[in-house]
């Protein structure tokens, strides 16, 4: 794998309206960003790796993705519509800020309605910006400094984690090794499994995986 020196910022755009997704996608592309669009908050969390596919969809026929196969993608910014059915942009903002792994990702809220209480609520919860729709190209220039901050921070984090990993001799999260561990250690490693926010896990996936291919989702488009 190596560390990909992506010169482009990768933005995750969330909006339930196809029309708005097309608009924000083009705006972001024109601002030289790589874009992934999703149509709901739950799909956004799924994409980030904070939720499994079967938690998001209520379709009994959907095949579930096991937590181990989640790839964590590098996102420099999340831009989301406020009014969405199910999970609102505000709910998504909260979930992101509650997550240890992703709370550093800047979140921007968009809304067609100018409601001051709504705006302050979002900013208080940690949103970096609140854009009134229709969003203009000029608005997106405000995003660059926020994205720069995270990118540099993530690069530093990866560096320190990989250093830590290399120095540790035991690889508890390797399933083939677990069997030979004494019982109390085995229980410990099982407790770590569901914690996606575990930093060790992230580092291991970075080191082990050579192919950063993403799992396929419906209704998600990634474009450069």
């Amino acid at each position, binding site marked *: 794998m190596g560390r990909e020196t992506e010169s482009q910022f990768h933005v995750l755009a969330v909006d339930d309206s196809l029309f*708005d997704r097309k*608009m924000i996608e083009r705006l972001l592309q024109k601002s030289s960003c790589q874009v992934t669009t999703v149509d709901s908050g739950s799909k956004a969390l799924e994409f980030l790796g904070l939720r499994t596919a079967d938690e998001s969809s209520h379709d009994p026929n959907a095949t579930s993705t096991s937590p181990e196969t989640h790839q964590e993608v590098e996102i420099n910014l999340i831009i989301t519509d406020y009014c969405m059915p199910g999970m609102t942009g505000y709910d998504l903002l909260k979930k992101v800020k509650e997550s240890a792994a992703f709370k550093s990702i800047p979140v921007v809220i968009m809304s*067609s309605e100018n409601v001051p209480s709504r705006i302050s609520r979002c900013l208080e919860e940690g949103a970096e910006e609140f854009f009134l729709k229709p969003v*203009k*190209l000029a608005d997106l220039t405000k995003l660059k400094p926020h994205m720069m901050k995270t990118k540099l921070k993530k690069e530093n984090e990866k560096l320190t984690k990989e250093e830590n990993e290399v120095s540790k001799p035991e690889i508890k999260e390797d399933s083939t090794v677990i069997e030979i561990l004494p019982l109390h250690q085995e229980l410990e490693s099982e407790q770590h499994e569901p914690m996606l926010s575990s930093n060790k896990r992230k580092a291991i996936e970075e080191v082990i995986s050579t192919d950063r291919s993403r799992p396929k989702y419906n209704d998600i488009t990634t474009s450069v």
Partner: protein
Amino acid sequence: MNTTIVAQLQRQFQDYIISLYQQGFLDNQFSELRKLQDEGTPDFVSEVVSLFFDDCAKLINNMSKSLERPENVDFKQVDSGVHQLKGSSSSVGARMVKNVCISFKECCDVQNREGCLRCLQQVDYEYKMLKTKLQDLFKLEQQILQAGGTIPQVDIN
């Protein structure tokens, strides 16, 4: 390339688009939209506009159904439709459509069925009107390109 023909077409295009702004069919957001189009995405505006008109037709149809029976109007559905329509018309720069949506929302808020029906009719008229106007505009664009010319940048301020 016949430069006279191209120049004529370009002038025609310019005059036409300016008239659309002046008559209030389009607002500044349309020119923001045009900024997003480039050599790599030459059909962006026509695609987005086409999506918008499809949306209009669909939303108007749904709202019409919700407003059909006087004793059983689903104002929530109508409100949702108006909200979406207002949003997309605003994003595209469809000024008349957006303005009707503002009145439409007011009628919906007070559950005025008659008012809603009037607004629905008006919004239907306005989007269809704009659709023909923009079709003519895009036709002019195509003619310019076919004659070997470039589409003029028109700044509205």
